[in-house]
């Protein structure tokens, strides 16, 4: 049995950054890359299933992205993934989360996992849609925002708890194979040891193009997407009035604000 874990190499912005000349994204030089925080939890959940299993379980990490996304996959290998697959080619530029999901679904058709995990959302663009769109393309049952999972490899269904607004949990039984989007806090992701990081560096990463998966050109990139970025811009500065000065001056102003606004309480 396999667990396929879809991961993303997310980007955060450097303190100073510039928008690209075409106005549709930030200049790549100003992007800091890392494995998406949510994906750290889904990988851990998959590794936990393997560790608890009495039958063989393989954890396969898949990432859609260019060369530098190998870094995210190396991290997954170091933390316990058995195998890593990366899919990319230039035709996939401009893909939205739905086009990305189509490619992940094609990988799932090839790998035939018993469960497919994705993060609830990505830290950079937070679409919260890729995993559930993968389920649509596979026509698999799906559940989002999972903070608890009970599953035995090979079982016909799993019992999950999804975390609702306000912290209420909703327990559901879901037929397998299924797609689950994993929420922060479902487990405590492990740190990779130096030894495993070294070993991961030597492991192969299988690299595929969309055509290798039988996906037509028109199904990736902008053409295969349900939305298109038209413009990216820096919003007007927020309204915070900055309190400047030394630590003592800043703290004195904060103390004054507390006296004024919460004086009765203090």
């Amino acid at each position: 049995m396999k667990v396929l874990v879809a991961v993303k190499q997310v980007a955060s912005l450097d303190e100073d950054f510039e928008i690209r000349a075409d106005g549709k994204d930030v200049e790549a030089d100003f992007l800091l890359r890392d494995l998406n925080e949510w994906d750290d939890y889904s990988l851990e959940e998959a590794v936990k299933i393997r560790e608890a299993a009495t039958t063989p379980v393989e954890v396969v990490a898949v990432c859609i992205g260019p060369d530098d996304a190998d870094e995210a996959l190396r991290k997954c290998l170091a933390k316990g993934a058995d195998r890593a697959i990366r899919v990319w080619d230039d035709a996939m530029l401009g893909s939205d989360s739905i086009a990305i999901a189509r490619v992940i679904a094609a990988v799932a058709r090839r790998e035939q996992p018993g469960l497919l995990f994705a993060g609830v959302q990505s830290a950079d663009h937070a679409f919260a849609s890729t995993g559930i769109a993968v389920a649509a393309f596979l026509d698999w049952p799906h559940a989002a925002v999972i903070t608890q999972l009970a599953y035995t490899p090979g079982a016909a269904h799993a019992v999950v708890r999804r975390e609702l607004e306000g912290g209420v949990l909703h327990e559901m039984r879901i037929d397998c194979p299924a797609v689950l989007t994993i929420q922060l806090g479902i487990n405590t992701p492990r740190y990779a040891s130096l030894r495993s990081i070294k070993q991961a560096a030597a492991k192969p990463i299988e690299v595929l193009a969309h055509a290798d998966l039988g996906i037509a050109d028109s199904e990736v990139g902008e053409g295969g997407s349900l939305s298109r970025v038209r413009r990216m811009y820096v919003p007007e500065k927020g309204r915070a009035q900055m309190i400047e000065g030394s630590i003592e001056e800043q703290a004195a102003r904060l103390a004054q604000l507390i006296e004024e606004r919460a004086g009765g309480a203090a």
Partner: protein
Amino acid sequence: MSGILIIAEQRRGELRPATLEMVSAAQSARRSAGERVAVALLADEPQRLIPGVSVAGVDEIVTVQTAARDFDPDALEAAVGALIEARRPALVLVPHSIDSFGYAAALAAKGNYGFATDVFRIGYEGDALLATRGGYGQKVNVEVDFPGRAVVVLAMRGNMFKPPEGRATPAVSHFAAPPARARVTGLEFIEPTASDDIDMTSAEFILAIGRGIGEQANVARFQELARALGAVLGCSRPIADAGWLPKSRQIGQSGKTASACKLYVAMGISGAIQHLAGMKHVSTIVAVNADAGASIFSIATYGIVADIFEIADALRAHFPH
């Protein structure tokens, strides 16, 4: 093709507040005064929800009876998909909520509808529908369009539109939901355990801590500071997930909303959108963070860029008891 279809959200038979916010969002998205706004009520007893959406700005209410009372992603996807195909609205609004996380992307992918999530503004340029959302941790705005899509589904961010105030008597029609496969079955709802006797929703002054406190050993310092200030200590998700404070202290989308709060001092909280959802309405927010680029400064009233421990110590000295 025209018209706006709102998919109301209910949980355990109660309408969720996001529903009425979408009515106002729909008003902002109407292309002409004549464009009709319909609200679909999907529930086991949808007629019970009619009064709740009989508000100004709604022209029609469509009741859709579902087999199960509780959220079933397949049932929702099938019913909403069939409704869209029957009516072909130009725009479909759903809330950007935990329930919609569970089915909206599948609905859009299967129907090939234009699709964007966490949208906080809708506009047009010529005939092109434009949706605005955040990017890179809300540090940029991203405008997306939907070339060639006759139907566009948008998941709308909460707390961006004020619910309408006036009442109305919209026409009511019924729509028969297609049968859905029973692949996902709701078993039970579990209320968060009251691990603590504190009710964050009634606290008027909250001192909230986040990842910036670094390690568990530092929690006690801020507990003591909160006591001296007369504040209730709250936290962002990572602190509760790590078990450093009980879940009942967590402010945000999956935690508590700081409903009664008048003063919110956030220390070492970068300001993930899920945290902001629980506190950005507070009238006075003071954010203390070492990172001048932290998102929380974009919604705070006052900002202090400094080491939170130094500020905490200096602040403590002002409250001698």
